[in-house]
């Protein structure tokens, strides 16, 4: 036993015949409207058959359609994206900073190196410690002073044993 929808489809496709066709037509509430609908369905069917060639390249069609949809639906570029793709990217800023630091360090080292000798040359010689053997020179005393005008440091030892002139020999 066919349902109404099955009979309707078969009628559209002209597959109902004989008694079955008569019974179906009798069951239609508005036969004129049904005939008009049948004509429309047949027109759509023939149109689809004509356009079947155009749909043979379905993948390309689908791709084109998807691209167009993507373009239309693409969001407005955000602020971070603009920064990332601009001239001053984060990476370039980082490299710029490192390079500047390196140049500064090199300059500082060179300047420091050049200034060091002149500043250090101001220093006088320093006597850190000194002593005489008390058993050899019991009366010896040591004093030290700097003659800043002459840039000379003097270690002054008094009380060492006096020696005869022959000790001046080479």
């Amino acid at each position: 036993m066919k349902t109404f929808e099955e009979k309707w489809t078969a009628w559209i496709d002209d597959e109902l015949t004989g008694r079955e066709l008569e019974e179906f037509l009798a069951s239609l509430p508005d036969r004129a409207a049904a005939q008009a609908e049948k004509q429309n369905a047949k027109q759509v069917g023939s149109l689809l058959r004509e356009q079947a060639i155009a749909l043979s390249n379905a993948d390309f069609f689908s791709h084109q359609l998807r691209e167009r949809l993507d373009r239309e639906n693409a969001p407005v570029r955000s602020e971070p994206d603009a920064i990332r793709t601009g001239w001053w990217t984060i990476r370039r800023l980082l490299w710029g900073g490192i390079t500047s630091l390196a140049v500064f360090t090199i300059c500082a080292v060179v300047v420091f190196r050049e200034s060091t000798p002149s500043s250090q040359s101001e220093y006088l010689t320093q006597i850190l410690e000194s002593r005489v053997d008390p058993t050899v020179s019991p009366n010896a005393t040591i004093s030290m002073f700097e003659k800043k005008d002459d840039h000379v440091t003097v270690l002054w030892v008094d009380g060492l044993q006096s020696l005869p002139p022959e000790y001046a020999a080479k």
Partner: protein
Amino acid sequence: MRRRLLLLIATLSVAFSIGGASLPEQTVWSGLIIASNSPPTEPTPAEVTQIEGTLRKLFGYSQFQLIGEARKTLKTGEEDWLATSKYFSLHVDSRGEKADAYVLNLKLFQEQKLLLETKARLSKASPLVIRGPQVGDGQLVIVLVVQ
């Protein structure tokens, strides 16, 4: 990126090696001098001439006779040497350089007898003068200069 980083490190290394370079080779002159007022028998040595005026003011002597000397070029800053005369010797032991100066341990011997022991930081710009014992009518003076 890695190549750039390596280049940066290499540049910095060169800069630091140039900047942190040690003192260039320098010579320390050490002299044993007899200061006196006796008539000169030989010309005053060039090293003494530079500070002759200072020595005159300090000791009141007019003549300076060199009886022993040593000239040592310091490469590592940790060398030792001896300046000797017939009866005196000065042993110098350099213990490295620091702030444009050499740290020296000095020992003055009269033959085998240790007369004086001292430690000094000898600056390039400033000679060290040591007053030694009286010798006859003169005075033993020790001078160290970075040349």
